[in-house]
């Protein structure tokens, strides 16, 4: 058909249908939110001057920093554990598969809090002394009562890393399985050894695939660092709790803590966004 055979149409504006329903819904939601905010302000549950006084206080900032360090280190260790567990799980070796599956079941299946308390309280009772010696050395490397070695920080790090390692193991396994068999066959057919296939083909792609899920886990770990307050580690929640138990400004100090958790979450989200830009999925 040529343009000439089409009857000429005047250039008319196009009017789209109005979404009245979504406007009404939006207004309703806004009204509900505004009512809640106004009610909270009227009830004076929060004294902003107290929040301002504590938000950048050295104790709180130190607590936030400790939480960040604990959560970040735990993610790094959990990723290493998870990588090993995932490789064991896909190895096809029945013994390795059984060991890794059991690990994932136990550490994913029990509350993190129980695991933290276990490492801090139960292990020193089970093993009162830690003795570590290397051959050909006169003095042992470590010979000390367990309570002196297992500090709240170490117990929290061990607890969070091992629990999170189980989750990361499953996430990384999913990433490995998402790289199609065909690419593995192609790499093998080129003459790559299994180690090369892993390092050149599987890890680069699995790594990209797991970034969003790993970002999620990082945020979860940063918040889960608050569990360490139960074993006396001076992280953000513990510091806030200590302060409000003497001045009774409970809501203000919880708000301060919440603010710093939000800052950490923003930090983790930013890292995730950058990583997804630098390593896009193709």
């Amino acid at each position, binding site marked *: 058909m040529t343009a000439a055979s089409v009857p000429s149409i005047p250039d008319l504006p196009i009017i789209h249908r109005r979404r009245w329903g979504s406007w009404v819904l939006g207004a309703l939601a806004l009204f509900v939110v505004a009512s809640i905010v106004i009610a909270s302000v009227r009830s004076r549950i929060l004294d902003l001057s107290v929040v301002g006084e504590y938000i950048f206080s050295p104790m709180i900032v130190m607590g936030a920093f400790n939480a960040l360090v604990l959560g970040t280190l735990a993610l790094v260790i959990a990723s290493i554990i998870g990588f090993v567990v995932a490789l064991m799980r896909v190895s096809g070796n029945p013994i390795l598969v059984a060991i890794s599956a059991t690990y994932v079941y136990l550490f994913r299946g029990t509350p993190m809090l129980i695991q933290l308390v276990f490492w801090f309280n139960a292990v020193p009772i089970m093993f009162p002394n830690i003795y570590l010696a290397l051959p050909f050395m006169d003095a042992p490397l470590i010979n000390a009562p367990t309570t002196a070695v297992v500090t709240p920080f170490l117990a929290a790090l061990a607890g969070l890393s091992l629990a999170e390692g189980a989750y990361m193991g499953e996430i990384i396994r999913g990433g490995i399985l998402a790289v199609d068999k065909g690419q593995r066959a192609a790499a093998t*057919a080129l*003459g790559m050894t299994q180690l090369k296939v892993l390092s050149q083909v599987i890890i680069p792609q699995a790594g990209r695939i797991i970034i969003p899920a790993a970002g999620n886990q990082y945020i979860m770990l940063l918040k889960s660092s608050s569990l360490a307050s139960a074993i006396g580690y001076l992280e953000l929640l513990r510091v806030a709790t200590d302060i409000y138990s003497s001045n009774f400004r409970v809501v203000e100090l919880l708000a301060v803590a919440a603010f710093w958790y939000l800052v950490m979450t923003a930090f983790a989200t930013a890292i995730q966004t950058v990583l997804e830009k630098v390593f896009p999925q*193709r």
Partner: protein
Amino acid sequence: MSTAPEQSHAVSMVGVSKKWGAVSAFTDVTFDVPQGEVVALLGPSGAGKSTLLRCVNHLETISAGRIYVHGDLIGYRLEKEALYELTDADISRQRQKIGMVFQHFNLFKHMTALQNVMSGPVHVLKRSKAEAAELALDLLDKVGLKAKAGAYPSELSGGQQQRVAIARALAMRPRVLLLDEPTSALDPELAQEVVETIRRLAEEGQTMLIATHDMSLARDVADRVIFMEGGGLAEDAPSKDFFTAPKSERARQFLARLLQAH
């Protein structure tokens, strides 16, 4: 003990069988492929064509028999009347000289076309990046895709992806190229580009084993047809003869069905 095959044969299959438990793909397959010959493996779906190709580079282990590529026993070491499977490193070394092209291209999705073609020389042969890039660009040029060197697989058409995959296999300078249905995931027009590329390789004397349902590839490019059916080798003939005067009744039926389908 059967005698070692002639060195001049690019591929020798000697009484090769493959089965998984009770499921048999093929039994007692024997044939030789002289250097420079292009062989089309034909046969109905499930005849074992893909499996046979995957046995040649030991992606599948065989259940009986022996496979030689240029005189090398593939996958095993003969010692005191028994065959011992080689190590991962040794098998990888044997695979370097056997190229493979897949139905679904199987390009590395996180690498550009150029990086895909470079991957063998760099990661397997430990060539320098510069040297590998130069070779890769030549090969991409040869398959008509020099302009797409920087494109990722997701940015290429199926035909282009398959030509990159062929270039990737060629970068290892394979003595034998195995192609498993290289055109069957492609529209006829795109398939034609790939057939042209393969035809040019055939003219250069590249030894090839091509499993295919594409009759233009089998008739126009291959020197010889090996027809597999019913768990074994049913006919082995020059491709001219196979298409004009098939000897076996099964081959006749197979060709008649194909003609009906088209």
